[in-house]
């Protein structure tokens, strides 16, 4: 029994009026902010769509299927940009996703002493702090010259493969995707790391107890259990890649064409917007807003698809591999 003079209260005690009030206030505040976020997104869409309206009326669907961007001739189409956005992001996701998840496994599954693990983790996360322009410059001055001999060799010897169909001029899809993959690395690895480290250690211990080797435990038990989180990391990384602007504007070549070749220059929606907005006149602005709306739609679609797949897979992927 505690005396009445000590103010310590047991957990079981009834909440005070103040606690109830602050709890309610906090709840309504978060509720308010959550809905404000929704309202903000809707307002942005409304605003962009409103500014794009003249262009939507004038160009309609031909804007999505057209392939020229001609300010003089008033002919606009963003199919090459849509292609470039998806192509560069998918390439970046393939490279960055693989390495990001590998790093996450490496950092969570006791491959390293704890102190070293912490250091590595911080270094990978520091990559997120490097400004986009610096990545772009690094791409121009380091990545492209490094890639040139390899790319030229591949083109000279394997040009029957469409992926190597053109020689590398400098800026192009692959340099852009490579730099992009490094830019999404921190996002992918940080979130997958969280997912992997939140897998209950009992699961792994049980698998090892049943005679699984370290890699069997990782691939058969831990990865499937963390798969929802890892998938979420990949979707977020993809979203980041879709919207990346400055580094791509500097590295992708900004050429209005569609080519499957990795070395060919291309363009992305975000780069198009970054390049044309600062000097856009009254006639070009609605068209650019239309392009922005399409980019928004693509990002939204990717997120919805991600959420749906996530829901589907998370039902099946729980538990051990068969």
């Amino acid at each position, binding site marked *: 029994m505690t005396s009445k003079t000590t103010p310590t209260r047991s957990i079981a005690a009834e909440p005070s009026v103040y606690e109830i009030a602050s709890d309610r206030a906090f709840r309504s505040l978060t509720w308010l902010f959550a809905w404000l976020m929704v309202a903000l997104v809707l307002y942005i869409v409304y605003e962009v769509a409103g500014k794009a309206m003249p262009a939507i009326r004038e160009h309609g669907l031909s804007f999505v299927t057209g392939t*020229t*961007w*001609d*300010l*003089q*001739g008033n002919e606009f189409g963003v199919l090459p940009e849509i292609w470039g956005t998806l192509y560069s992001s998918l390439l970046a996701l393939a490279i960055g996703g693989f390495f990001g998840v590998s790093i996450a496994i490496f950092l969570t599954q006791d491959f390293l002493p704890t102190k070293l693990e912490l250091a590595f983790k*911080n270094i990978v996360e520091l990559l997120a702090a490097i400004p986009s322009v610096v990545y772009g*410059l690094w791409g*121009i*001055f380091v990545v*492209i*010259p490094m890639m040139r001999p390899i790319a030229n060799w591949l083109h000279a010897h394997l040009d029957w493969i469409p992926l190597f169909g*053109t*020689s590398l*001029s*400098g*800026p*192009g899809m692959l340099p852009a995707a490579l730099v992009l993959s490094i830019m999404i690395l921190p996002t992918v690895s940080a979130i997958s790391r969280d997912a992997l480290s939140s897998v209950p250690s009992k699961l792994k211990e049980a698998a090892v107890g049943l005679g699984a080797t370290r890699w069997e435990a990782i691939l058969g038990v831990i990865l499937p259990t963390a798969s929802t989180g890892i998938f979420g990391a990949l979707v977020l990384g993809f979203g980041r890649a879709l919207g990346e602007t400055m580094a791509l*504007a*500097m590295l992708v*070549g*900004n*050429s*209005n*064409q569609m*080519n499957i*070749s990795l*070395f*060919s*220059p291309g363009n992305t929606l975000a*780069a198009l917007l*970054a*390049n*044309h907005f*600062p*000097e*856009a*006149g*009254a006639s*070009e602005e609605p068209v650019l807003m239309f392009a922005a709306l399409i980019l928004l739609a693509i990002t939204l679609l990717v997120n919805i698809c991600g959420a749906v797949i996530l829901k589907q897979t998370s039902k099946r992927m729980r538990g051990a591999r068969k």
Partner: protein
Amino acid sequence: MLFRLATVCISSLLMLLLVGCGASSGDSASSNIKLQGSGASFPAPLYGRWFKEYSTATAGVKVDYQAKGSGGGIKDFIEHTVDFAASDAAMNDEEIAQAKPGVVMLPMTAGSVVLAYNLAEFKQPLKLSREAYSKIFLGQISNWNDPAIAAANAGTALPDLPITVVHRADSSGTTFVVTNHLSAMSREFADGPGVGKSVNWPESDKFIASPKNDGVTATVMQTPGAIGYVEFGFAEQAKLPMAELENKSGNYVAPTLENAKAALAGVEMPADMRAWLPDPEGAQAYPIVSYTWLLCYTEYDEAEKAAALKQLVAWCLSEGQKSSAEMGYVPLPENVVSAVKAQLDSIH
């Protein structure tokens, strides 16, 4: 530890910012007139120097210039968010009609646009005939060993290397100047890409676009076999070789200050100060040269502002011209200076 370090860095940065803000707000408090301008990025280094020198020499006047590009400047000017604007391409009739109450266009300096290239093995300055460089920008000449290029460069073998053309990705006054010149001399270019601040370049995986003058410069520097157009100052700063171009008289001329001056000398300044030099005459005239303009309103609400602006322009035309050449720009010829000074009277 890392966190603490970051906190220290951030707080010291904040301190610096606060101190900086304090200092600048103190400045503006003591000055009575502030002139706000925006526009062309090409003359920005020169304008920056002029306006700073003028502000220190003249107590009570502060000039603020934002280099956001010619198109942006014209837009700001029409929307009245600035006191003056600057543009590499003078306003066209449609834009002039939109600008209320009226616009006075004043050429302030001139500059040349050069074709910078990257050919490591090729030592002598590259000579490009009118046919050669117009066809390069049309995508019709696509290798450096093309006979049309080789003919003008006897003596040294040109490499068997594809030509990568680098042009501007953003809408730009520089593009306007170059396409204006190419269209004036090649019928095919005029019918194809045409003249504009952003044009529809030929579709090819050897045509690459980069943002801004520095983007084009960096890409040319990093790409063997590249050729691109940039303002003279950028190529010179990056130590990129610049091609000697065949002019209207058939001579090959380098983009030197004298040759740019020779190009300006051949042009008569019309009453509205919109002098285009798509293809200048003269034996030594460098072919791609353009004036760059300051745009002022004909009437200002505050008489003091108009007076300050007139004084500023007058200063730039006399004192300012002395530093033009030093910074890679072409000083205005005497007759143009007096013509521009006469125009100042129409600002109230």
